[in-house]
């Protein structure tokens, strides 16, 4: 069997955006990138699609405006029945995220509040698009910020699993000239006629369609790597138990890839069901169900990795938050600012980052939404500086100068 048939990296070409971003990388991030010799960390990006309600995930239970705006939805104060888990004087953690509490206490988990994307919209489609392209307002951007980061740190000899989307389709975040594969799960990722692999590889090498040609090469290389590392057979460690839910399965596959020694640097995955217009629920109910699934999956992943969690950084975010006041159907409509969660290596954990400006006055946007206190790109830039360390973050987020959030060491 031929092991490496084609020089698959020939498709790497410089991004057209590269010229726009010069000089926009602040000194503190340049130093973070330059002043270290430790190996790069793996970045796991979890996108909550649908607009997750940050005011229920990390509720400002200490803010008197909070229960007033949310008569039926507000998460009660810590200590009350169904109350939030106390984080600090202002914030609590949704009780369904209880599996994450030990990680908060140990300093592995942090939140950034009132995070969002300036100049975005309340359209799911556009807001997700802008979050993934990293260029709000510019629809013609072809690639995603995570792919541009990979373009900044080319690895001509990287394996097929360097950048992986664990979901059915390659998300916008990872689209671009740097190779990336998308697989729904490792279990089903094999060719039923393995002896045909060489033939199909030949067929796709000759494909006229460039996307099919490069995807084919990535697919066949990944098939070989997955088979030889026996990735799908690896059991969880440290007594971790993953629930039978999509995100849990995807994070389990992430752990398998990490242990498989296949050169994993980036994982992108997603979770849906956050668009809670009707009957959102408070401590229990619709949103609580989604949060339980999220919390259990992240906690199992952290446990599975054990000390290796320090080699990985997980970033959880959504396209926008929801209206501060609940709507007429005990739900919330599309809003602006929300919350981000950060877990793992490099995270300055056990605290809520981002300046909190309350739920009225400057903290309220257009008299309805949580105003953005922190641009998500500032947080993503710090996360990249702490993990993949691209030499020029200005090319990853062209035209944007990150502000200091201090969410990472």
């Amino acid at each position, binding site marked *: 069997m031929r092991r490496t048939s084609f020089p698959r990296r020939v498709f790497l070409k410089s991004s057209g955006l590269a010229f726009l971003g010069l000089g926009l990388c602040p000194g503190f991030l340049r130093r973070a990138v330059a002043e270290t010799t430790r190996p790069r960390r793996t970045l796991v990006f979890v996108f909550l699609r649908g607009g997750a309600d940050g005011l229920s995930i990390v509720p400002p239970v200490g803010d008197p405006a909070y229960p007033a705006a949310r008569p*039926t939805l507000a998460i009660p104060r810590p200590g009350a029945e169904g109350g939030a888990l106390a984080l600090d004087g202002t914030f609590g953690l949704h009780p369904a995220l209880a599996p994450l509490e030990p990680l908060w206490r140990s300093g592995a988990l942090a939140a950034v509040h009132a995070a969002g994307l300036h100049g975005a919209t309340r359209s799911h*489609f556009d807001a997700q698009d802008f979050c993934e392209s990293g260029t709000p307002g510019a629809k013609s951007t072809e690639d995603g910020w995570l792919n541009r980061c990979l373009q900044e740190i080319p690895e001509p000899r990287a394996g097929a699993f360097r950048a992986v989307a664990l979901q059915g389709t390659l998300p916008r975040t990872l689209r671009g000239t740097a190779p990336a594969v998308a697989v*729904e799960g490792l279990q089903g990722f094999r060719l039923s006629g393995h002896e045909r692999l060489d033939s199909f590889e030949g067929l796709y090498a000759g494909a006229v369609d460039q996307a099919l040609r490069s995807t084919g090469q990535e697919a066949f290389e990944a098939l070989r790597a997955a088979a030889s590392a026996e990735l799908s057979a690896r059991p969880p460690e440290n007594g971790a138990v993953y629930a039978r839910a999509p995100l849990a399965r995807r994070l389990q596959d992430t752990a398998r890839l990490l242990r498989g020694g296949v050169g994993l640097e980036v994982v992108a995955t997603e979770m849906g069901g956050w668009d809670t217009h009707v009957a959102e629920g408070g401590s229990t109910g619709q949103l609580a169900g989604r949060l339980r699934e999220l919390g259990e999956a992240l906690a199992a992943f952290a446990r599975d990795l054990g000390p290796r969690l320090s080699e990985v950084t997980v970033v959880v975010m959504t396209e926008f938050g929801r209206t501060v006041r609940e709507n007429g159907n005990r739900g919330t409509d599309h809003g602006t600012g929300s919350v981000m969660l950060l877990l793992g290596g490099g995270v300055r954990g056990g605290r809520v980052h981002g300046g909190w400006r309350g739920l009225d006055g400057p903290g309220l946007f257009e008299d309805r939404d949580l105003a953005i206190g922190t641009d998500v790109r500032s947080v993503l830039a710090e996360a990249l500086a702490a993990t993949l360390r691209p030499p020029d973050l200005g090319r990853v987020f062209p035209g944007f100068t990150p502000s200091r959030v201090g969410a990472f060491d």
Partner: protein
Amino acid sequence: MDAASRLTTVALVLVGFAARASPPDSGGPGDGWSSEKQAVHVLNRLAYGPSPASLAEIESMGIQAWIDSQLRPAAIDDRAVEAKLAPFRSLQMSTAERLATYEPEVKLARQRGLDPADPETRARLAEELPMGALPRQMGAELIAARLIRATESRRQLEEVLLDFWFNHFNVAAQKGAVRWMLASYEQDALRPHLFGSFRDLLGAVAHHPAMLFYLDNWMSTREGFDLGALRRAGAPVPKKLAEGGKLGLNENYARELLELHTLGVDGGYTQADVREVARCFTGWGIDRPRQVGTFAFHPMAHDRGEKQVLGRTIAAGGGMEDGEQVLDLLTAHPSTARFLARKLAQKFVADEPPPALVERLAAVYLATRGDLTSVYHALFGSTEFWSDRAFGAKTKTPLEFTVSAVRALGGTTYGDVALVKALDGMGELLYRAQPPTGWPEVAAPWVNAGALVSRINFALALTAGRVPGTEVRLPEVARGAGASESVETLSRAVLHVPLSAATRATLLRAVAGEEDRMPDGETRSVDRAQVAGLLLGSPEFQKQ
């Protein structure tokens, strides 16, 4: 001749003029193409790919007559498929009958004193109850019917358009009561209007409980609407509803109506317009969604104040007609014309459609006040549709790939679970696209490593006869034909395009491997299933 058909005629003349005004070398539709190439192109776009029967149909009718007949599907005899669908009981029921027949698992669990929140209980219930009594039976029948029609119906364009408009007006089975309403949504709201006026289609969708439920409009009321107060005043409001407190506006449908159904996200509306449109649609609801499930307008929930939508005033004191006025306004809006024209051109010509074509189609839309058949007609007669750049330029969606593979081998299907699972594995879960954008039409989201491996696995399984409920007939090769001749015959029958030298060499190498293993040194005819599997899994077959 009434005003509308006069306008249609004017629009068609305009389109004809546009075609003549194009560069001389492009000539008329399909000029310079062999009749086989014309047929293959049309079947790739207006149908789910060429099948031996559909190619023969075009050959006997002529290409233009075939296209024209597809634009009038009611006249096409499709009794064979209708007969095949007759056993699907759930598709012939009303929504109310479906709600009564296929009770939710949760309800059945409670009747047996079991905890419906426990997944184990639900699994046990599924085993104890006959499949035919469970709601999932409806989904299985709906999906099977869709796959059978796509594969075998002679009204191919209707099936292609159904898929297009379903995605345009997407609803998802997993949201609440929607799954009991899906069959009606497809049969009553979409199918009757696929070839009619956009206003009728838009109106049928806006009135349909599936959409009202999916985008929450049935819950949207004027601000402060108080059911408790109504009950106290003696109105027949159920106690449970009355305890729900005050209701109010929900923006979900209004926003998607503007962004996804009509104007497009850059169509020139504001957040204020979203709220005003939502106010217009307050009271558009559903009569008991889990028992009756038909449209109902609730006058008391309607906001009777004045509204400003896209700079137009909708006078105070209106009722249900407020919403109708909004739909009129949106239908006639140039942004809607351009948005729909672009989507249709993207579907039938190229992922990045030529702007000139989009402008011309938008003009036809406006001139005919949104007559969809006029737009289709203009599209299928355009030089862009018949250009070399358009030929084979689209990447098949998983549904298109799966069905076209069965059709290419003259196959038939019962749309059984094996076929559905294969489609799921490629990423397209029929009726379960969760976001309101539906499943994407363009290539980029579908072309990735995992999905590609799933496509190849399906090609191998189908040709090896390992997809129960779906059968194919492998093309014949001449007795005694050599490997080269056999590969040539099979690839012409499956791909209809000449093989590149590299592809031919790869296929011959794969076949040669088999011959090497022959013990007696005799030439055995090639393994047709194997070659067909490679062909259906090839990059060429992913395109249309």
